[in-house]
């Protein structure tokens, strides 16, 4: 009686193991999809940009000329790299203080009943599609910027090089400001989490020595959460660098040397917007197509550097904070 029972049990165990293993193997393989996407992206872009890099070498990255006429092609993307940095820089300069203000308001100041609706509105800002920001920017926001900021500044401060030129509202500055709005949800929501994670015991200690609310925030909460906020800023930068549609519609789309960012009020071009603008004109197998893949690769590398950096900062933040709370 005993031995068949044992055999049965062993059989079931064996079956269980097989069924579970099957499931585990299946999910293990499918989970590799992230790796596969990363690989495909890297492979396609590297392979596609080989011709352009072979043709122009480093001058692809550091050249300013842009001549797509077949036979005499020259492609240098430095103006687009700088345009990307300029618009993202403006986005951070304007967007980060706003986001921090929102995060502080939500975590430290707002009455309970306001917290959920406000963070909800801020999240909706992220839900609006980029192309709608572009549409709104073209027909509404552009004129706000033009009439209330650019024209006054250019009238009185036009002699300063970065404010020179005739403002049209379709320029590096407008693109940067729309990016600032678009990174607010990212930076604000992560900063909010970072501030929420600051242990209450620190706030209590600070209040107990007679600090005002603002002093508690400035000297204790922000200082404790600074590396997390730094991570939030990097993630915001990542979003700004890769953002395409709204920028494409608002930056004015200059090419070649004229896209070199010299003034805030001139039209420019970013890596992403140059792809959206010009990619369709490139025919398959052409050097121009390879150029756009090369631009894509450049953007990919920037994005990877930024996001890996953000990842390192954020994991460190959570580890360090985890230890400090103990």
């Amino acid at each position, binding site marked *: 009686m005993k031995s068949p029972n044992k055999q049965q049990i062993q059989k079931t165990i064996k079956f269980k193991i097989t069924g579970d293993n099957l499931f585990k193997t299946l999910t293990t393989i499918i989970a590799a999809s992230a790796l596969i996407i990363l690989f495909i992206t890297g492979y396609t872009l590297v392979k596609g940009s080989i011709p352009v890099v072979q043709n122009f070498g480093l001058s692809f990255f550091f050249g300013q000329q842009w001549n797509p006429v077949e036979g005499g092609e020259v492609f240098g993307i430095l103006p687009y790299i700088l345009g990307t940095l300029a618009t993202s820089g403006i986005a951070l300069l304007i967007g980060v203080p706003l986001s921090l203000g929102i995060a502080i308001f939500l975590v430290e100041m707002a009455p309970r009943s306001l917290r959920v609706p406000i963070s909800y509105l801020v999240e909706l800002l992220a839900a609006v599609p980029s192309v709608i920001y572009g549409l709104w920017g073209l027909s509404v926001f552009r004129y706000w910027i033009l009439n209330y900021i650019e024209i006054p500044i250019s009238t009185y401060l036009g002699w300063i090089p970065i404010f020179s030129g005739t403002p049209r509202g379709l320029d590096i500055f407008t693109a940067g400001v729309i990016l600032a709005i678009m990174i607010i949800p990212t930076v604000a929501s992560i900063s909010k989490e970072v501030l929420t994670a600051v242990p209450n015991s620190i*706030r209590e*200690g*600070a209040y*107990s*020595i*007679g*600090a*005002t609310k603002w002093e508690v925030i400035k000297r*204790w909460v922000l200082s*404790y959460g600074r590396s997390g906020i730094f991570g939030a800023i990097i993630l915001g930068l990542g979003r700004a660098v890769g953002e395409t549609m709204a920028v494409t519609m608002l930056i004015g789309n200059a090419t070649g040397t004229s896209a070199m960012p010299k003034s805030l009020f001139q039209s420019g071009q970013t890596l992403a917007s140059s792809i959206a603008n010009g990619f369709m004109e490139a025919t398959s197998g052409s050097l121009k197509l390879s150029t756009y893949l090369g631009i894509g690769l450049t953007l990919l590398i920037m994005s990877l550097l930024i996001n890996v950096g953000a990842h390192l900062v954020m994991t460190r933040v959570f580890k360090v904070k985890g230890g400090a709370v103990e």
Partner: protein
Amino acid sequence: MTSTQEQNISKPKPDQLQQEIDPTAKMRAINVDVWFGKKQVLKSVNLTVKPNTVTAIIGPSGCGKSTFLRCFNRMHELAPNAKMAGQILLDGKDIYERQIDPVQIRRRVGMVFQKPNPFPTMSIYDNVAAGLKLTGTKKSKLLDEIVRHSLEQATLWDEVKDDLKKSGTSISGGQQQRLCIARAIALQPEVILMDEPCSALDPIATAKIEKLVIELKQEYAVVIVTHNMQQASRISDYTAFMYLGELIEFGETRQIFEKPKNKLTEKYITGEFG
């Protein structure tokens, strides 16, 4: 809980009403009620804190003793949906009056918390100096002096004098708690509130803090919440016993521990519950 005990609680407590108005009292709580949302956690609590004494508040966990303590420097206001009624007098003036800002009260009534909470982003020196820097004390000589004096008073100076630049969290738990005491002392408060300051510490560190508390009463009035009855009997001059949000009995520590008037107090003291 049997019904007789509950009756005991609901009866008016003569000793509580008899707390005579003492003109020398440093602080007085008069009919303090506290609610969190709709839940009432303190019911008409009265207490007198005399200068240069240690007053212990004991009671089983959840009896409201920490909440009560936090009313003395308006820290309970930081909890969302906390509501308070009644008066807390500091030198005869109600600290809950409208024109009085809690920020100023907290400089006069310092606080030490259950878990040592030195500021992790600040050095030991800055931990002690932080409160003074808020009000703009910039003279480094004066600061140095006060920091040294506070650390000495907190019996921590000898242990950290060479490491003043190190982070406030780099020292041991007991040292951290004494650092927090020094942080409170640096503001030269009149009253120091301590919320179970030893509950996170080992026995040796606890002994040091207890000794320190007794020394502190030379200069300050100390109110200490503790769940440790032996500790209360060792260090306090007056003891208040709280139960379910009410003050059951208040009196000299020796009387409370040797001849409690209330049945509930007696049961708690003898360890029948809690």
